[in-house]
């Protein structure tokens, strides 16, 4: 029988990883909103722009999550 928690780890890991790779700005905004003023960086009237280094870091974490999800999926096969 399939271990539900491992299956969840595989599916949700891949989903979250893809979100981190595809929309790093949105993820960073979620983490910084309320902790720092959302309009502190970038132009007036817009959301803060995200430094490239942060974006790459989040995308890197996304790749790790996708890899982790795939690994747990593989263990179920």
């Amino acid at each position, binding site marked *: 029988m399939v271990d539900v928690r491992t299956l969840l780890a595989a599916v949700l890991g891949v989903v979250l990883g893809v979100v981190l790779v595809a929309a790093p700005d949105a993820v960073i905004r979620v983490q910084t909103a309320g902790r*720092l003023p959302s309009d502190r960086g970038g132009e007036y*009237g817009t959301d803060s722009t995200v430094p490239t280094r942060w974006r790459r870091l989040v995308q890197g974490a996304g790749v790790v999550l996708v890899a982790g999800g795939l690994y747990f999926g593989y263990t179920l096969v």
Partner: protein
Amino acid sequence: MEHVGLKARMAVVGATLFAFYAVAAVVVMGAFGWPLWLVLLGSVAFVGVQYKVGKWMALRSVGAEDLPADRYPGIHDRVESLSRDMGIEKPRLMVARMGVPNAFAVGRKGAGTVVVSQELLRTLDADEVEGVLAHELAHIRNRDVVMMVLGQGIASIVAIVAQWAVLLTGDNDIADFFLALVVGQITQLLVMVFVLAISRYREYVADRDAAREIGSGEPLARALEKISRGAERSRESAVDAQVNALCIFGEERGLARLFASHPPVEKRIERLRE
């Protein structure tokens, strides 16, 4: 009755956040045997630290300094007058070199700070600066900063509890740690969708309040237009790569739109001119 739309939306979002928080609190009380007062005290302390650290970090990260009253007497006088009209204490005024025209507010009613960039003061006319300042004062009066801190605090607490719930109900193997991490992040993303939706609406409310206080929405609309056009131009000319990196403009789509804290500038300008 003032801000009926905002109050109705806040009631819906507030009830949703409270529901998330209540579930998290019950889980903590059940799992760790904490009494309600300790859960509430812990939550208040958590949000309070976020508020204090956030304000300090925001001012420090841009290198904000007090706006000298002898160099900018007009701005100080206007903010004093606007604050009186809005029924709040005059906030601390600060200036910073941010590389782009910008302004933001931190703090709360009675202990607010408004930071403007030198670039903004150079770019905008006096009435446009007044529109921007009135918008920031409206944020302080409407407690928008506090609302965001509270929203993020609840999202973080719910995410941490979700993480621990996964950990404590598992076998402590590597898949459980991984699942806990993922569930925590997804939970925070979900809760923040509600917080950011209300944040976008609060921008419109601050625009409307600013327009009412200064008698017209035109100066703020012009300010937004001028800054957005400047950003477009600098992006097109590709003169300065570093500035261009800070001026990513244009319509955001999909997830980025869902997780934006500000509505599109074009819509704000349109509403200000309605």
